[in-house]
């Protein structure tokens, strides 16, 4: 009679491996990968998104590690070395303990993510468009009125109006550094989407809708602007480069733009928060 081989405690071994992989993986995500995650640190909101992406990825590491460690462990340890003798493992169906742990773990993770996401979103809007009546207004906006800038999408270009500077309209977007900016995103024709990548701002531009997004700039930088909504034949060319400059440079630039746009100033309509496609003389 062959001596009975005592099975090792597979569960304990898997848990130990899972802990090791999770700790190393999470540390790598937080300290190595996280700081380089998009969209960078071009604004307070962008930095917040980097932190959020890091948290999400850090939480996903133990989940992924559990799957991978179990898979690799099973491939190595549970491999059938005698193909003629195929023995199935013990069934886990009806194992109340496993079901309970599964429910508890997944519920905790999902509820935490829902709570974390909601709190982060309500703090400052995370650079997203919030419609005409935003509920996630940055705390700084209550103490100091933000700089309002209107983003006007049109096939196929963005232009910008600065209501606090006489409603002057410009071809390019320039913002002062270390300033809370209230972006009013709208469209003259079809649906566009204003995406200022390094600033962490993305807001749909709809005709007849004032879509408000907040961004708090940091130091001077150049940022890429793209349309993120398929809007016609030249959608792929609807891009521009914006700039965040120090406050004195911004003041000089905006006054230069006012002087430059003087010939067309009298033709501009009064500043409005929304527009509709007009004129329609040739529209079918």
């Amino acid at each position: 009679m062959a001596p009975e081989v005592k099975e090792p405690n597979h569960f304990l071994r898997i848990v130990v491996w899972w802990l090791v992989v999770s700790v190393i993986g999470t540390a790598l995500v937080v300290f190595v990968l996280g700081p380089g995650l998009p969209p960078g640190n071009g604004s307070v909101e962008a930095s917040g998104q980097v932190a959020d992406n890091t948290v999400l990825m850090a939480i996903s590491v133990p989940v992924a590690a559990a799957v991978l460690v179990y898979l690799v462990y099973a491939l190595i340890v549970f491999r059938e070395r005698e193909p003629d003798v195929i023995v199935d493992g013990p069934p886990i169906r009806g194992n109340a303990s496993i079901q309970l742990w599964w429910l508890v773990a997944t519920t905790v993770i999902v509820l935490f993510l829902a709570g974390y996401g909601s709190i982060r979103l309500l703090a400052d809007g995370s650079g997203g468009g919030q419609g005409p009546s935003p509920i996630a207004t940055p705390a700084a906006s209550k103490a100091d009125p933000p700089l309002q800038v209107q983003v006007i999408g049109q096939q196929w270009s963005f232009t910008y109006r600065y209501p606090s500077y006489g409603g002057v309209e410009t071809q390019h977007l320039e913002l002062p550094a270390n300033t809370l900016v209230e972006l009013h995103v709208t469209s003259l024709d079809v649906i566009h989407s204003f995406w200022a990548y390094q600033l962490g701002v993305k807001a749909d531009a709809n005709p007849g809708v004032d879509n408000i997004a907040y961004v708090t700039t940091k130091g001077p930088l150049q940022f890429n602007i793209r349309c993120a909504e398929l809007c016609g034949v030249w959608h792929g060319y609807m891009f521009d480069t914006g700039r965040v400059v120090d406050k004195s440079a911004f003041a000089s630039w905006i006054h230069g733009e006012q002087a430059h746009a003087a010939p067309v100033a009298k033709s501009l309509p009064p500043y409005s928060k929304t527009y509709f496609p007009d004129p329609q003389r040739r529209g079918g």
Partner: protein
Amino acid sequence: MSASGKRITGIVIAAAIVCVAIALYVALYLTNVPGSAAATNTSSGVNLYLGTVAASEVTDPHPSWVSYYAVDANDQNWRHVTTFVLPANTLVHVTIYNFDGQSGLRNPFISQAQGITGGSFMLNGKPTKAIDPDAASHIFAIPQMGVSVPIYGISDDAKNPCDNAPCPLSNDHSTSTFTFRTGAKGLYRWQCFVPCAAGFIHGFGGPMQTVGYMDGFIKVV
């Protein structure tokens, strides 16, 4: 030949025909490049002559579509191309003959000329920085170069309008001339910003969404 041999031969021939058809389709797609017009050299740069008309020539696949044309300055020969070849880092003197009416600009800001030498253009011989947005017929804009020039439309009660391209200069028209400097070599796009596509939703379908009519490319070489 056995039945299975015939079957295999048939499958091979059919597969060969399909492969040849796909290869031909791909080859035609890759070699079917739209025509282009090159600017003419002068001592101070290059000249580019363009025409805009409310309706393309009657033989065009879309004879009712508004369109830009390249115009030969010497013989007034109109070519239906919207890809223009320009030398890099060179002054380009553009003349646009517009035979189309007034559609009006959706964004009045674009009624001011941008990105051109001197900041103003000549409209029917008069220096102009901006036009009445409601009188705009078209825009010639190269957004990547920051160039944008409004094109003044002819009056609704013009006595001698042109129906279809090509249009002789004896027809009612406006003439805009301006100069801009090209940048580095590359492929740029140009477009009109006026909702001038008659019969299309918001005036921005058809010729506004089709390369070869109200938009095209600038090849800087």
